């Protein structure tokens, strides 16, 4: 591991790519079937979030605001606007759940969400998600934990053929789906929490209803505690796993920092073999492992001479860094949105919490960028290779189909990065 810098060394952020906790919370609620995320704050936060996610997913995004105004901001404890918001929402649609989450404004006021929740006679989960702490990843993690704490029924019974998957925020809809399928191959019934794979992908524009459609249902969530296996992916999901284990201490828990690349996928596969009692994995798994090995060899010529800047949420950096470095790429700089214990697991020369101005200052250190669409300007300015990943990705179509996980996704990912690196080198030689 290289040097880790956890605190920015300047007073402001220039070209920030950190995203807010309320946004992460809203996104997690969108992974619940027929849920209405209700953001408690000024209406702008909700409007920005809606536009941001609509552009990223190319899907309509259901979300509402309590629309706090100067009157409510100063005078009221927040109860009024929340109760009124719930009434107005349920006048028009019948969500299975309301996902109440706070913002910086209402946290500064000190609104008591729990107190309000007890006054509302409607299925509701609340979570404190101020935007002056944490980020997208922690907002998602905290919300998953709140869903578990407030919805899951405790039990002592366990079903050995049932698994719960807790994916971190940077996994795309198809990645969640691929991960579920992988677990199913080993004979489990599996439920993801949250589950964007069925709610924010492949709706053909038919979803005119104002609610999320697809995702894990509230009924399924309430019955999660009888699963024999809890599988958490990403450091940000550890607290959620702990909360679930509290509901039924006899569950067994497998935590993976990520599921990218050969060794991490091996680790998952061997754990699933053991849990399922199978001797051999299904043939498709064996086949894809060979393909990944092949892709590692094919791409190593190019990747071995490529210095990479990784930009994203901590859990994403750990996984992408690992799969790339397994094929010989050097991660010279990993730029994280926020601090996290996960920063210790990133195989990079230098890890720092920062902004894209920092990446610009260090531009001589890397040849290729793996990051969100804000890094595109940086790549153009300094003629770097570019592979778009993470939030936001507005300029390309097909984000939700981008799969980098496990043996299969790893093989595609390595080829894509190697090709981008060659493309960049070819373009450079023209100068």
């Amino acid at each position, binding site marked *: 591991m290289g040097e880790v810098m956890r605190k920015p060394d300047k007073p*402001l952020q*220039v070209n920030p790519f950190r995203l807010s906790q309320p946004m992460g919370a809203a996104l997690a609620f969108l992974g619940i079937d027929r849920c209405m995320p209700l953001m408690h704050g000024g209406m*702008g936060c909700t*409007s920005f979030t809606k536009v941001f996610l609509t*552009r990223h997913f190319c899907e309509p995004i259901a979300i509402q605001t309590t629309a706090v105004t100067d009157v409510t901001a100063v005078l009221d404890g927040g109860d009024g606007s929340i109760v009124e918001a719930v009434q107005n929402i349920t006048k028009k649609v019948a969500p299975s759940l309301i996902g109440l989450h706070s913002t910086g404004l209402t946290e500064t006021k000190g609104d008591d969400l729990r107190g309000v929740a007890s006054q509302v006679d409607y299925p509701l989960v609340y979570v404190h998600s101020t935007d002056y702490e944490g980020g997208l990843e922690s907002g998602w993690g905290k919300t998953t934990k709140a869903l578990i704490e407030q919805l899951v029924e405790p039990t002592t019974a366990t079903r050995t053929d049932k698994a719960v998957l807790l994916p971190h925020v940077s996994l795309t809809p198809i990645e969640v789906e691929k991960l579920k399928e992988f677990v199913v191959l080993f004979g489990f019934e599996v439920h993801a929490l949250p589950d964007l794979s069925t709610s924010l992908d492949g709706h*053909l524009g038919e979803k005119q209803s104002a609610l999320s459609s697809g995702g894990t249902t509230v009924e399924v969530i309430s019955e999660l505690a009888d699963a024999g296996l809890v599988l958490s992916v990403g450091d940000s999901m550890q607290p959620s796993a702990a909360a679930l284990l509290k509901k039924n201490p006899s569950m067994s828990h497998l935590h993976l920092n990520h599921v990218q690349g050969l060794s991490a996928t091996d680790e998952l596969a061997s754990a699933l073999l053991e849990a399922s009692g199978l001797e051999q994995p299904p043939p498709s798994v064996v086949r894809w492992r060979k393909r990944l090995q092949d892709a590692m060899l094919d791409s190593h010529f190019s990747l071995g001479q490529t210095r990479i800047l990784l930009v994203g949420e901590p859990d994403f950096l750990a996984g992408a860094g690992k799969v790339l470095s397994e094929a010989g790429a050097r991660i010279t700089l990993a730029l994280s949105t926020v601090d996290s214990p996960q920063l210790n697991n990133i195989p990079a020369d230098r890890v720092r919490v920062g902004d894209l101005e920092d990446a610009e200052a260090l531009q001589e250190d890397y040849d290729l960028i793996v990051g969100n669409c804000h890094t595109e300007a940086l790549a153009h300015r300094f003629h770097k290779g570019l592979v778009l990943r993470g939030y936001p990705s507005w300029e390309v179509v097909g984000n939700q189909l981008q799969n980098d996980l496990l043996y299969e996704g790893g093989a595609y990912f390595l080829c894509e990065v190697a090709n981008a690196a060659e493309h960049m080198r070819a373009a450079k030689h023209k100068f």
Partner: protein
Amino acid sequence: MTRKPKIRDLLDESACTHSPTKKNACNAPTPGATTGGCAFEGSQISLFPYADAAHLVHGPMTCVGASWETRLTHTSWAGRDLTQMGFTTGITTNDVVFGGEEKLRSSIDYIVERYAPEAVFVYSTCVTAMIGDDIDMVCKQAAEAHGIPMVPVHAPGFVGSKNLGSRIAGEAVLTHLVGTQEPETSSPFDINLIGEYNVTGDMWQYTPLLEELGIRVLSTLSGDGRVAHIRSAHRAKLNVIVCAKSLVSLTRKMQERYGTPFISVSFYGKRDTSASILAIAEALGDAELVARTKQLITREETRLAQQLAPYREIFEGKKAVLNTGGNKSWSIASALQDLGFEVVATSVKKATEADKEKAREYLGEAGILMTNPGQEQAKVIDQTGADLLLAGGRSLFTAIKKKIAFADVNQEKKKSYGGYAGLLNLAEDLKNALQNPVFKNVARRAPWEK
């Protein structure tokens, strides 16, 4: 005395036609039933296009983290385009507890040192307004220390809507910039463009024509704008408001203070573009200029007619249904008619009374004004046999079900549809939509579906 704008006064805009009746609706969003942006967003839209100024957002992450680099507001500024950069103090818990003024001060110093902007706009947001940071004081001291204007913008999201935010932004410009510098030269045909943000280069579709006529754009608020120019805006002979009712209070005050008259125009579609250019010339009150302008309009319209001829053939007899909001409900309708479409229906869901009147005028007696387009549009398509639906992305499925062409009019714009040249862009996009077989192909049933 505080220089903060008085929100009540701004809400009470006498020059805003709908304010006597709609005041409350403008001001009070309904919890659980609102989708618009906040005042901060409104001020951001109004001022960020000044590419030679830094825009420092004093607040936590949501405000600018989710919104920088989202709008294609082009600039000809040769330096680094600061519009496409995000600056934020990124308030943390510590600042909420102990105050963020110190951080704001050093952030301004940092920006001035590294990026040498012509000015710094400092935006307060919900959290920093709530904790009571005195951005006026910090700005005043920083302006003295650095010798460039620092403009505090008091538009935290909780004061109200986007529209109010633009007004507050206008107010900030009026208080801190307008009239603080004299222009290098003056001409009898100097105008200011107010409320044109040059999204996708809209402004550049018609400013060359104004220049050709000898009309000089002295300053803009704020498309392709310069801080130095807006500081001398008080010397303009006319304020031209482009499609933005929210900045009418700014122009009214400039009329009171500096005697600058104002007119309101739109550059959407052929008829509106011609009428607007002529209106500017007439307002400048020079007979010879008016004559020149009429010639230019004839020339441009003739050229446009030639360029549009092949498109008009394709659009001949085609019927369009339009589902969009605000003034677009008639302005796009008028552009469509200029292209030869028959506009059979438009949405007046969120339109003001004036917008409805205009829509009625453009569509004629037979035109359908939809008040609940989400439910009505499918029926209207059946009734009228429409060929094209122009709406927001949510309506895509209606088009697929009805197997007709679809164009997204609410999508973040990438191409300009403004002026005469923009009409050609629109024509090309609609031609492609009509000729694209995707809507029919996607609607194909799966072999296992009955």
